[in-house]
C-alpha cells in the first residue's frame, strides 16, 4: 500500500494531472478559448459572412485552428478531456485523505477541545449524576452519531459527531461534472441534430442533418396537417403551433401538436417548433379576358403543374412557375400555353402590371416574356396567389440528455453538501467536584465556525434543561 503510494507520488504524469494548478490553468484556458469562440461567429450564416471579410491568409489560419466551429473541434474537446482527467486524478489522489477524515473517530477523552471554552458552554449540576451513560449518553445518541464514552479518573467523557459525509460533497460535484461531460459525449455520438420544413398538408420521411447538411431517413413519416400562428394585438407573434401526424409504414399512429416550448417526442426523436414561413403557389387564380371585350372574363383556379383547358378549348394552359416576388416586382406566375395549333408560348403574369411598367426600362417591359397579352386574343391577369404555410421543425435525438440532468442534480446536491454541511464533532465532559458535577461541552467543525458556536450553546442549554426537569 505504502509503496504503491510512493510510486504514484513519484510518477511525473500522475503529479502533473493531480495538481490543482493544472485545474486552474485549464479553467482559465477554457474560459479564454470560449471568449474567442463568442467573438468569432460560429457556423451558420454569420460565420460565412465573417469568413468572406477575411484575407485568405487569415481565413486559412483561423479555419486550420477550427475556429469557425471551435466548440466541436478536436483541441477544444482535448481541453475538456484534460479537465476531466485532471478531475478524476485529483479526486482519486485526495480521496484517501477525505476518507480518513470521515472515518477516524477521535479519542473521546481528548482535553484539547476544552481549552478556551466560552462560559456559555459549561454549567453546574448540584448533585452527583448517578447514571451519566444513561442520561447524557442517550441524549447524545438521539442527536449525534458514532457516540462513545470513556471514564478517566474523576472525569467522564462523551463523544458524538454529525455530518461526516460533508467531506464527500466535493467528490459528488466532481463526479457530476464528469457525468455531464459523459452525457454530452453520449449525445454527440448516438444522437443527431436535424431540421425539416413541412408544407401544410405535406408529408416527409427524411430530415436534414445540421452537420454536413446530409439527409437522414427517420424510419417513419410525419405530416403537418395544420400550421397556425396567433398574434397579439400589437402584431407580435403569440403562438406557433403545428398539428402533426405520425405514420409507420403508411399507417397513422399518432396525432400530436408541437408548440414553442412544448416539443413532442416520437420513437425517441423530438420535434421542436422552430420556425415557419410562407410558400406561394398552393393555388393560383387567373382571370382571362378576351382582348376586345372586357366584360367577357373567365376565372380559372389552377394548381401549378396541372394542365387546364383554355375557355374555348384553343389549347391547354400550365402554370410552370410561381414566384412570391419576382425581381422585386411582386408576385408573378409563369404561364405556358400549348395551343392546339401553332407554337407554344410562355410568359410571366404579374399581379401588379403597373409596377412592371413603371420600374422596368421600356424595352424590357415590352419584352414578350413580360407581356400578358402575348397569347392573342387573350389578356391574362393574376388575381390571387394562395400561399401555403410551412412549419420549420428542429428534429433531434439525444440519448445523453437524461445523463446530463442526473449530473446537474448531483451537482446541486453536491453544492449543498459541500457548502452548507460540516463535519461537527462534540465532546462532553463531566467533572465531579465537591459540591456537584461540572458539565462542559466542546467541539470542532470543518466549516462555519459561527453557526457551530451557536449549535454548541444550544446543546449546552438543552442538556441543562434535561437536568433541571429531573429536579
Amino acid at each position, binding site marked *: 500500500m505504502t509503496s504503491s503510494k510512493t510510486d504514484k507520488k513519484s510518477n511525473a504524469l500522475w503529479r502533473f494531472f493531480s495538481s*490543482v494548478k493544472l*485545474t486552474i490553468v485549464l479553467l*482559465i484556458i477554457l474560459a479564454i478559448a*470560449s471568449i474567442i469562440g463568442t467573438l468569432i461567429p460560429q457556423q451558420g450564416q454569420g460565420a460565412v459572412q465573417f469568413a468572406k471579410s477575411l484575407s485568405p491568409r487569415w481565413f486559412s489560419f483561423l479555419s486550420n485552428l477550427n475556429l469557425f466551429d471551435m466548440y466541436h473541434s478536436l483541441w477544444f474537446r482535448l481541453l475538456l478531456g484534460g479537465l476531466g482527467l485532471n478531475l478524476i486524478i485529483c479526486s482519486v489522489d485526495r480521496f484517501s485523505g477525505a476518507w480518513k477524515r470521515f472515518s477516524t473517530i477521535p479519542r473521546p477523552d481528548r482535553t484539547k477541545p476544552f481549552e478556551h471554552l466560552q462560559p456559555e458552554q459549561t454549567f453546574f449540576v448540584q448533585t452527583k449524576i448517578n447514571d451519566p451513560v444513561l442520561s447524557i449518553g442517550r441524549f447524545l445518541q438521539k442527536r449525534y452519531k458514532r457516540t462513545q464514552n470513556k471514564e478517566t479518573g474523576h472525569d467522564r467523557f462523551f463523544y458524538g459527531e454529525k455530518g461526516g459525509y460533508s467531506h464527500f460533497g466535493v467528490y459528488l460535484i466532481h463526479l457530476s461534472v464528469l457525468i455531464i461531460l459523459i452525457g454530452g459525449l453520449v449525445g454527440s455520438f448516438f444522437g443527431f*441534430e436535424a431540421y425539416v420544413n413541412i408544407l401544410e398538408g405535406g408529408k416527409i420521411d427524411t430530415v436534414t442533418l445540421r452537420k454536413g447538411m446530409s439527409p437522414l431517413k427517420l424510419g417513419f413519416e410525419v405530416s403537418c396537417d395544420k400550421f397556425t400562428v396567433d398574434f397579439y394585438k400589437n402584431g*407580435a407573434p403569440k403562438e406557433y403551433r403545428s398539428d402533426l401526424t405520425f405514420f409507420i409504414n403508411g399507417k397513422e399512429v399518432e396525432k400530436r401538436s408541437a408548440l*414553442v*416550448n412544448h*416539443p413532442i417526442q416520437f420513437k425517441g426523436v423530438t420535434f421542436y417548433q422552430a420556425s415557419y414561413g410562407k410558400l406561394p403557389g398552393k393555388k393560383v387564380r387567373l382571370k382571362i379576358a378576351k382582348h376586345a371585350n372586357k366584360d367577357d372574363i373567365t376565372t380559372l383556379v389552377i394548381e401549378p403543374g396541372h394542365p387546364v383547358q383554355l375557355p374555348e378549348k384553343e389549347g391547354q394552359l400550365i402554370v410552370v412557375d410561381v414566384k412570391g416576388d419576382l425581381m422585386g416586382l411582386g408576385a408573378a406566375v409563369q404561364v405556358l400555353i400549348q395551343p392546339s395549333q401553332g407554337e407554344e408560348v410562355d410568359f410571366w403574369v404579374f399581379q401588379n402590371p403597373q409596377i412592371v411598367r413603371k420600374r422596368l426600362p421600356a424595352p424590357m417591359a415590352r419584352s414578350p416574356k413580360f407581356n400578358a397579352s402575348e397569347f392573342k386574343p387573350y389578356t391574362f391577369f393574376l388575381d390571387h396567389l394562395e400561399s401555403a404555410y410551412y412549419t420549420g421543425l428542429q428534429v433531434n435525438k439525444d440519448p445523453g440528455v437524461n445523463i446530463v440532468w442526473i449530473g446537474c442534480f448531483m451537482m*446541486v446536491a453536491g453544492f449543498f453538501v459541500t457548502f452548507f454541511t460540516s463535519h461537527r464533532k462534540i465532546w462532553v465532559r463531566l467533572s465531579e467536584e465537591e459540591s456537584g458535577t461540572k458539565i462542559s461541552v466542546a467541539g470542532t467543525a470543518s466549516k462555519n465556525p459561527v453557526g457551530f458556536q451557536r449549535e454548541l450553546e444550544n446543546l449546552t442549554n438543552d442538556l441543562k434543561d434535561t437536568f433541571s426537569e429531573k429536579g
Partner: protein
Amino acid sequence: MINSLILSYITFVYFGSFMLYLFMMVNGRDIFGRLATIVTAVGFAVQTIAIVLRWLESYSLGIGHAPFSNLYESLIFFAWTVILLYLIMEWRTKSRTFGAFVTPLAFLALAYASFSPNVRSHIQPLIPALKSNWLISHVITCFFGYAAFGLSFGISIMYLLKRLDNDDRKNLFLKLIPGKGVLDELNYQMVVIGFLMLTLGIITGSVWAHSAWGTYWSWDPKETWSLITWLIYASVLHSRTVRGWKGKKIAILCFIGFSCVLFTYFGVNYLAGLHSYAKS
C-alpha cells in the same frame, strides 16, 4: 404607467441612500448610517410594490406575465436583488459600511433602466419562446447570482482600499471599513451564494433551452459567457479552498469575475445570439 414612474423615482431614493452611506463613511456620524438604512429599506419596500403593480398591470392588459421578460424588467429586478441581499448582509453583519459600495450598483441599474433611451419600459407581451414556466426560476436564480457577485465585487473594492490603511494613516473612511479578515470571509460567502445561484441559473436555463430550442447547450454567446463566468468563480473557489489563496488575489479574481458577469449581462447583446429578447 404608474409602476415605471414609481421605479424611476426609486432611482433617486437609492442615490440618496448611497450619499447617506457615503456621509457616514466620511464624517463617521452614525445618524447618517441609520438614516441611510431607513431610506434604503423604504425604497426597497416601494420598489417591491411597484414590481407587484407591474405584474398586476400586465394581467389587466391581458398579457399577464411575471415582470422578467426584457432588459428593463431585468434591470429593475437586478436592483431589487442587490438591495435585498445588501439589507440581509447589513442585518447579519451589523455593519453599514458596505452600503456605500453596494447601493451604487442598484442606483446605476435603475438609472440605466429608467433614463436610457435604448431601454423600453412599457409592458410587452411574451413572445412564444419566453412562454414557459422556466422563465421565473431561470431569471430569479440568475439574478440572485448576479447580485451576490455584485456584492462580492463591492467587498473586493473595500478589501483593496483597506489595504491602503495602516496605523499611521488617519483616514476615517479607511478606518471605518471592516478588517481584512472579515471582508475576505464575507467575500467568500458571497461567491459561494453567487456560484450556487449561477449554477442553478445555468441548469434551469439548459432545461428550458432543451424544451424551447431543442438542445440544452448550444454555445450561444450568453450561454458561453455564463460558462466563462462560472469557470472564473470556480477558479476562485479552488484557489481559495485548495491552494489557500486569500485577500488580494481573491479580490482581484472577483473583480475579473464581476466584469464577466457584466459582459454576460450587457456585452453579449453586441454579439449575435439566441438571447435577443434581453436586449431591449
